[in-house]
């Protein structure tokens, strides 16, 4: 496969490229079983996480991935840097460019910032989530987890439940799963359903609709409390009762042997009940482990300056 400079979204990937990343993730995951969980692939390369928005999981996942590829990680704390003093994103990038950083992992609350950075640096840029736009590595790890769980994914059904409107995860994951031939449905309160939904996606109104649709995987989104300046639903308790995976619904999920996924971190008692965490067909921990393998696979594929 031809190396690529940046990974900014799923939409710009070809089917072959998606397949390349997912196939390579498998040998990377096998690496975790070895006593030495590290390969010299990115020896001498530097990776810089540039997180304008708080994230512990995604950031550490990228850092573990980079470490296992023998890259050097440059700690860069946006809050304490000049950014808070009003330095623009491009000024920061210029500084990083002078430091000869090879890979920049960007998260920003504003959509399109990773693209802007990518256009202005020789380094490879990986979008680790921008606004409501995209979160391609999350999508790829979700796809990998499903491929690992189901023998054949084409034609299988996944329902995504929650705040679809504000979710870049929903956008990217839904897209990659459809590219793999899966059927995708959304279940969300009217206020959290985007105005425009791709026509291949089935819209569901309630859990009753969901049972009727017969999905094999239920993908719960995190209720993003920090984005709830204006309330989109009456209360957290109300959300749990109407849209959450309650104990009662979990019983039915268990009976039908459905799989449950969540991008983390979970809000217990909101989008899901505590008991989901110990449910034997919950893929949540597997998603975390696979996140490292998939991010290693992405870093392995990207090459600074490729195509320039």
């Amino acid at each position, binding site marked *: 496969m031809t190396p690529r400079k940046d990974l900014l979204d799923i939409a710009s990937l070809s089917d072959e490229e998606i397949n390349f990343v997912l196939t390579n993730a498998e*040998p990377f995951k096998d690496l975790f079983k070895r*006593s030495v969980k*590290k390969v010299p692939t990115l020896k001498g390369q530097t990776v810089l996480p540039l997180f304008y928005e708080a994230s512990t999981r995604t950031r550490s996942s990228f850092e573990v991935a980079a470490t296992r590829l023998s890259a050097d990680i440059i700690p860069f704390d946006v809050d304490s840097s000049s950014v808070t003093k009003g330095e623009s994103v491009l000024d920061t990038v210029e500084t990083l460019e002078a430091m000869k950083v090879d890979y920049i992992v960007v998260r920003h609350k504003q959509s399109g910032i990773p693209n802007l950075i990518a256009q202005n640096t020789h380094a490879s840029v990986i979008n680790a989530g921008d606004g409501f736009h995209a979160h391609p590595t999350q999508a790829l790890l979700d796809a990998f987890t499903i491929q690992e769980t189901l023998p054949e994914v084409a034609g299988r059904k996944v329902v995504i439940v929650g705040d679809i409107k504000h979710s870049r995860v929903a956008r990217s994951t839904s897209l990659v799963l459809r590219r793999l031939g899966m059927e995708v449905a959304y279940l969300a309160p009217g206020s959290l359903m985007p105005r425009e939904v791709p026509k291949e996606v089935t819209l569901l109104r309630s859990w009753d609709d969901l049972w009727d649709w017969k999905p094999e995987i239920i993908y719960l989104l995190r209720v993003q409390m920090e984005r709830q300046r204006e309330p989109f639903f009456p209360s957290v308790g109300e959300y749990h009762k109407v849209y959450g995976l309650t104990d009662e619904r979990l019983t039915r999920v268990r009976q039908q042997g459905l799989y449950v996924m969540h991008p983390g971190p979970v809000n217990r008692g909101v989008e899901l009940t505590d008991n989901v965490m110990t449910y034997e067909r919950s893929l949540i921990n597997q998603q975390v482990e696979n996140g490292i393998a998939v991010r290693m696979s992405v870093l392995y594929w990207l090459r600074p300056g490729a195509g320039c």
Partner: protein
Amino acid sequence: MINLYVGVTHNGLAYLLAGPCGFGLLAGAANRVLGTDGQRHCSMERLHSSLTPRLHRLESHHVTSQTDKLRQLLDASGMGRCLDELAAQIAERWKDKSRLALVGVYRRGVPFARQLANRLEAMGKQVDFGKIDITQYRDDLQTMKVVPQLRGSEIDFDMDDAVVILCDEVIYTARTTRAALEELLDFGRARCVQIAVLVDRSGRELPIHPDYTGIKVDLPLQERVSVRFAEHDGWDEVFVRHWEGRPA
């Protein structure tokens, strides 16, 4: 030559069981001469002239893959004899109770290791088997035009205290072998690691040398050795083909 006869004496039974292979071995020996460094060199002209008819037959079967073939080094039976001999040498060296493991380097080191393992098993030796994908350990990964699809290494046995024979079909610059050795050591602390090759081609760029060698050849830069294995390619053969040569 002396080594060869010792091999036959110690493993006479294996060769007798193998039937024509024993005679093949002697016939093969006639085609080899001792080089100044004590290694066996293949007398290519003689091999080539004696095997020309077979070469034509092979070419008619595999036209597409052999268009740039220059000459044959070993035909199927010659390869079989070489493999018999290598397996005999390994068995002789490790006739004690050592735990033997054969590890093939992708791609064709794998069928090569498999062939040796089969022969060792036929001699009653128990051997572990592994495969190694050196991609992540390559020293030219950052400059390759294409990012290789990974196959993944499979070492399912305990490396600690095993005698590991690293198998590659051709050793040339030894950069692949260097990478393979480094990766192998990440799996555990082997008691001993040795290198087996079917063809030792001149042009080393690193000070690494095989412990078991099938044939040894000197080739100009614009030629390369190709090995084909029945289980991988559909036929057995070692031949020289045209190559643009390694970039300087």
